């Protein structure tokens, strides 16, 4: 089934989710100048192109590329790392991720049921609550103006690389099992 057929067979709910996938990167791009950052027309055009591609194929791995691209664009453009707009951008990226997630639950014509939406409402509260918590901690650390600590950074890196290793092993094992 080609991409246009998939879009044509979509339910109104799926079309709304595709619209969310298309709109959230645009909002993200608008947040950069609003938050005092620099607007890059070329980088923004690439982001829009990626957003269109992801809106057409939300269940693929293109959305990962879009999320990473937006993150790097934010890093390069945003002048105030821990301003209020960071939280808005976080909610925006999460909505993009959530819309892609809900679209990947079934083939075109699939209607997300009420239980699924309720489940994801709870999870969204948890995910965004954790983001707010991290933001508050980062603001507190920034406010206290603690001196940079190589140990803390090293520890954080070890934890993160451990998590990456666990994840890679899991995904690689699942991929191998699937190939069998």
């Amino acid at each position, binding site marked *: 089934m080609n991409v246009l057929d998939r879009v044509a067979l979509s339910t109104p709910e799926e079309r709304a989710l595709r619209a969310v996938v298309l709109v959230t990167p645009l909002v993200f791009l608008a947040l950069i100048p609003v938050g005092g950052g620099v607007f890059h027309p070329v980088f923004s055009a690439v982001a829009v192109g990626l957003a269109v591609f992801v809106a057409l194929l939300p269940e693929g791995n293109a959305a990962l590329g879009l999320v990473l691209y937006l993150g790097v664009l934010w890093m390069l453009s945003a002048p105030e790392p821990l301003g209020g707009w960071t939280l808005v951008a976080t909610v925006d990226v999460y909505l993009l991720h959530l819309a892609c997630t809900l679209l990947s639950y079934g083939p075109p014509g699939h209607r997300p049921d009420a239980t699924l939406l309720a489940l994801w409402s709870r999870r969204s509260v948890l995910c965004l609550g954790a983001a707010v918590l991290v933001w508050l901690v980062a603001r507190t650390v920034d406010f206290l103006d603690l001196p940079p600590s190589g140990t803390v950074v090293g520890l954080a890196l070890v934890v993160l690389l451990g998590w990456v290793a666990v994840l890679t092993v899991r995904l690689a094992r699942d991929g191998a*099992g699937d190939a069998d």
Partner: protein
Amino acid sequence: MLRGATWHATPVLVRAGLGSATLSVIAVVLARPDLLVLATPLLVHAVGAVVRRPGRTPSATVRLGHPYVREGDGTLVRVTVDGAEDIEHAALALVPHRHVVARPASGVIGASWWDRAPRRVLELPVASLRWGRRRIGDGLVAGTSGWGGYAWGPVPVFPQDLTVLPQPGVFDSRTASPHPIGLVGQHPARRRGDGSEFESIRPFQPGDRLRRVQWRVSLRTGNLHVTSTVAEEDASVLLLVDSGVEVGRSEGVRGRASTLDVAVRASAAVAEHYLIRGDRVGLRVLGSTHHNAVHTAAGRRHLRRVLDTLARVVPGENRDLDLDRMRFQVSAGSIVLVFSPMLSQVSVVATTTLAARGLDVVVVDCLPDDIDVAGDDERAALAWRMRLLEREVLLTRLRRTGIPVVAWRGPGTLDEVLRRLGRRGARTTAGHR
């Protein structure tokens, strides 16, 4: 793409895991806490998905709610998934088939659950809009674990047989059968007997029942008179369905009908009418249908047999059919109803052969008025007009040889014809006397 019946990581988990990990590492290395904030929701999602990593592999089976339905009536495609403790959401997508509709129309449903039960059931209502044997319920089923991290399938589910019985058209006939030949029934016979239909008032004979004494006439004449009635017998009807030619496009029970649709639905209606009244009905299908004959019998179970055979009718001529050796196994006195558009040689020969044997044969013309064969093609339209003229000539010839031809129009279609056949039979009998 089919991924097999094992659990595998979804792009959702890849995105949440690798996206959060990459952004977090950049955040730590470049001391950008805002990237860590951006990555946190994805990180929580990835952790949740990995924690809910499924273990047991489920299996799916499909069943239909009913093996038999009437056309237009619904049933359920029920997919049972066993070993479904780790499934939080399951989706079913059925392969679309002609004349089969589902609710929702896309044939795709999904369901989610809060609890972790070992068995999940997905039910999709479907209906067949046309009679016949259908294989439905084939499609794909897939499951997703908690947090959408892992997916099972999509795995194929295999089709099930569904027999769609024809929806009998509305039919009623108030006219009795011209030649009832059975023992008990509802049709007034030509002989006297224990019925309810008045025949005459005649002098009392030994053996007459006292309750039949007609006291007024007896007192007036001075001799005992009794009311005599005619016996009531059942009729024998042979339905001959011509499936050799199908003209027109069938749009299901709510749309336009093809000639075969009309023939099957009309014969089902007539069979139901006579069998419910206690008459005996037989069926013969003229065409390539494999199971093409039902012996003459009575009863509601026999009605199911007739409808089941009608549901198996497929269009197409039987080229091995030898008309000279064709045996209809029809007893004398039976009425033969030929449901045909009279466009095939076989049906014409069968009709004239049966009429030549002295049977009462009625042709029920199954060509709908609104049939559109040619579309916008002028040459095809011209050819179809010529074919219709040939058919008209043929029907006129049949009428001239004494075979009545009536167009199917539901209730009362056969009333006038049966009345005429009854009168003709009575004249013939009187002539013999």
